[in-house]
């Protein structure tokens, strides 16, 4: 069943759709194609992970005709009307939009990033077009940072990276009519119009930074010479509170660590859990001697960051956005039925333009966004990709 008020009316190079129910993917894609008004060349789908991946792939293929399909599952769907707990969002690009799709199993994350990016970019004109490389990955099957590093080796500094890690009950990536597990799917999209990418987060450091005095891979063993868990909990004011693992994880969800950058911003890092002995398990490795902040996510900062990300993406465009893709961290807000999530989405949509562009998005378990620098793996972030309009 199609969600209301999602079909755009003006002729454009991309159309979006979203739907819920057992035919969610078919309906979402069909709606996106109808919004486009022509046969698409590429369809991106973002179903929730409670949908059967095989059935999702079949529905997407059936509704997209000759178009190639790529995408990934999420823990929820972002639509112009708000967040959907179960369903699918989709965006259909006109057949004139050049693109490439690459896939690789992520057993060796760095190599997988390289392989998928190379395959996606092989037929894309990198010199004469604006290009964005979307990466749909599985953060559970390896270090997401390694995947992004591998993709960056191929894409270089001129091509922005965006995307994220699949979420939901059954995580999957999609490429060419079939679901994939533990894989990297890279989609390169080229355009004669600018493509803008915006990245932001709503994390605010608490107190002064600590120093990582011992670490092993993705486990922080000590902060400031003491067990990392103790220092972490003290900084969020819960040093003396006994916590179960579930309670700890719930608190950690709202209190990321972050690496301060020279220019004053921080790069949030998800704390996945704790280890016996006081270690903190992070989403990516943090080397010894690094400075880390313990952060909190303030509602106003989250809402503000949504607007900031859209503004940053749009500022690169010479006109209104044709289409907008959103990759929003699942841990940024309690989405469903929460006024904060509604405010966040509302502020994002209202910032995207009037009339709104084609919008599709998903909630991720790790984000990928790179505009400057060489590093693109992110947590607690909103990544906005805005495709410029020829009009």
């Amino acid at each position, binding site marked *: 069943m199609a969600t209301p008020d999602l079909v755009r009316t003006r002729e454009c190079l991309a159309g979006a759709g979203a739907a819920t129910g057992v035919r969610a993917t078919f309906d979402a894609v069909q709606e996106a194609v109808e919004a486009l008004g022509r046969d698409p060349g590429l369809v991106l789908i973002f179903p929730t992970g409670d949908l059967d991946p095989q059935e999702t792939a079949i529905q997407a293929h059936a509704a997209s005709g000759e178009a190639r399909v790529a995408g990934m599952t999420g823990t929820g769907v972002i639509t112009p009307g708000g967040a959907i707990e179960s369903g699918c969002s989709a965006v259909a690009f006109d057949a004139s939009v050049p693109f490439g799709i690459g896939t690789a199993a992520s057993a060796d994350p760095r190599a997988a990033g390289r392989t998928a990016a190379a395959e996606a970019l092989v037929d894309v004109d990198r010199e004469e077009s604006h290009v964005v490389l979307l990466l749909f990955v599985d953060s559970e099957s390896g270090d997401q940072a390694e995947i992004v*590093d591998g993709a*960056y*080796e191929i894409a*270089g*500094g*001129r091509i922005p990276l965006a995307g994220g890690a699949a979420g939901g009950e059954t995580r999957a990536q999609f490429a060419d009519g079939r679901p994939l597990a533990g894989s990297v799917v890279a989609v390169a999209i080229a355009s004669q119009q600018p493509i803008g990418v915006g990245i932001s987060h709503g994390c605010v450091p608490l107190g*002064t*930074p600590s*120093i990582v005095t011992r670490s092993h891979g993705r486990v922080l063993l000590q902060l400031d010479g003491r067990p990392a868990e103790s220092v972490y909990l003290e900084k969020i004011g819960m040093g003396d509170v006994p916590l179960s693992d579930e309670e700890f994880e719930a608190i950690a969800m709202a209190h990321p660590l972050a690496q*301060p*950058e*020279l*220019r*004053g911003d921080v790069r949030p890092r998800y704390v996945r859990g704790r280890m016996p002995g006081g270690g903190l398990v992070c989403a990516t490795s943090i*080397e*010894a*001697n*690094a*400075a880390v902040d313990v952060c909190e996510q303030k509602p106003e900062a989250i809402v503000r960051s949504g607007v900031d990300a859209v503004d940053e993406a749009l500022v690169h465009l010479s006109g209104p956005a044709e289409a907008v893709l959103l990759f929003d961290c699942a841990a940024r807000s309690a989405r469903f039925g929460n006024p904060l999530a509604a405010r966040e989405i509302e502020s994002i949509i209202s910032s995207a333009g009037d009339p709104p562009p084609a919008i599709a998005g998903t909630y991720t378990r790790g984000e990928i966004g790179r505009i*400057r*620098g*060489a*590093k693109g793996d992110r947590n607690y972030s909103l990544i906005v990709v805005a495709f410029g309009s020829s009009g």
Partner: protein
Amino acid sequence: MRKETATIASSSLHSVHRVDRRDELLRRFVEATRRAQIVTIVNTAASEAELGELFTAELCEAFEAEIAFVLTEPHGGGVRTLVGAYGLTADQRAGLLEDESCAHTLSSEEIRLHHDDPLSIGVRQLVLAPFAGKVDRGVVGVARLYEERFDEGEVALLEAVVESISHALERIRLGEERDALFAREHAARREAEERGQAALVLGYVADGVFLVDSNGTVQLWNPAAEAITGISAEAVLGLPVEQALPGWDSLAAGVTIASSPAASPVPAATLHAEIGERDLWLSVAGVSFADGTVYAFRDRTEERRLEELKTDFISTVSHELRTPIAAVHGAAQTLARDDVVFPDDLRRRLLSVISDQSERLAHLVNDILLTSQVESGRLALARQQVDVSELARSAIEAGRAHAPAELTLKLVAPKSLAPVTTDRDKLRQVLVNLVGNAIKYSPGSGRIEVRLEPRESGLRIAVRDEGVGIPQSEQQRIFEKFYRVPEMINSVSGTGLGLYICRELVRRMGGNIWVESGEEKGSTFFVELPLAPAST
């Protein structure tokens, strides 16, 4: 009012200063931790490649830059090496090695900021920081593809971390040199051990093995080579092969050299070689490899001699068979004539020829059959109480029947002689052979004596003649199968089996046989038998 306003203004100013001061401290703290983090990474890198990759990746992250690289060259110029690069394509990496701005920075001591695109790869901001180690000098480059300039703090941070990389490079290169040295030593030790093991194995190989290196010098000479040729390893090792083995050139010309042991087997050539004082027949094969040629050889001298003996034997037996057969045939043909009436004495003589030559043929065949039994181990000996005096007398009588009248045959034995437990027929055959030989090799007149002497452990039998004698050099060989003294082959008939059979029978009786002789001084063959053979 003015004062209050001024106080508020002052308070606000202090607050702004506090915020600025806090931000400044925070910035310095972050810079310090970044520096420590980079130095940690630099110091933990285990290889130059790892150092290059981790260092440049970390620089990109710390400076929010898209490109970073480290380039080195020896002091005074030389081949440039790209230790690591991040964010560059293969072509761009190659271009860096020739880049002029990098070359300029390498030869300077100052950090340089570029706001143009000196590398021609589309960068907007570039900082090049030189460093110098003991052996190499280098440059670290960090570049942005966007306009934001590197500020003073970033330049200072780069300057600080660049110092660490020259130390790390030196440590890694020394470590790599050390590892290479240890690896070479390990390989050399392993090679030496393998060679030692190979030499040990070669020490137990029955074939002679020697190695001639690519310079023609003998580098290995195994114990079997020493044993076969009689030349010690000390005498040949390190010498040119022509000098170590006189006549090598002609020998080597007959040897086929295989290109590798795994190649199709090359048949070994059997060649005649006079090495030292030895006259040898050697089967020789060679295999060449990068460092020279390995030769393996086997002593075929004995086999060659046996081959020759067999050839001689066939020739001799043919002759020995043909002669009596011809005599028998001739006598029988004569007797069969109807047109002639033979006088009685002629007829008797012809019948005697037939009888004697038939007996000779029977002996010859018996000898051949006995030899076959001896060699196949099928010869069974009886254990009987034997009166050797009686047996010797019988042998003398048998010999006397064929001996010229001028020869005297005599038995010398004590009146009482203890019997010997042995095989009567085989001992008789030994005595008959010895007495027969004494008669054959005593042309003209002379005396043949068979002497029986009791000894502490048994009985000694001596058969002495005054005949042609046996040269010293032949006295061991006359007991070999088919062997005949060359000088006697044409003048005395025989198969070369008689003494061989004697030796084998005596040995099986538990006794010994030997000869004492001198040319033209006659010979004495001794047989010593135990009174009873040891139980088996």
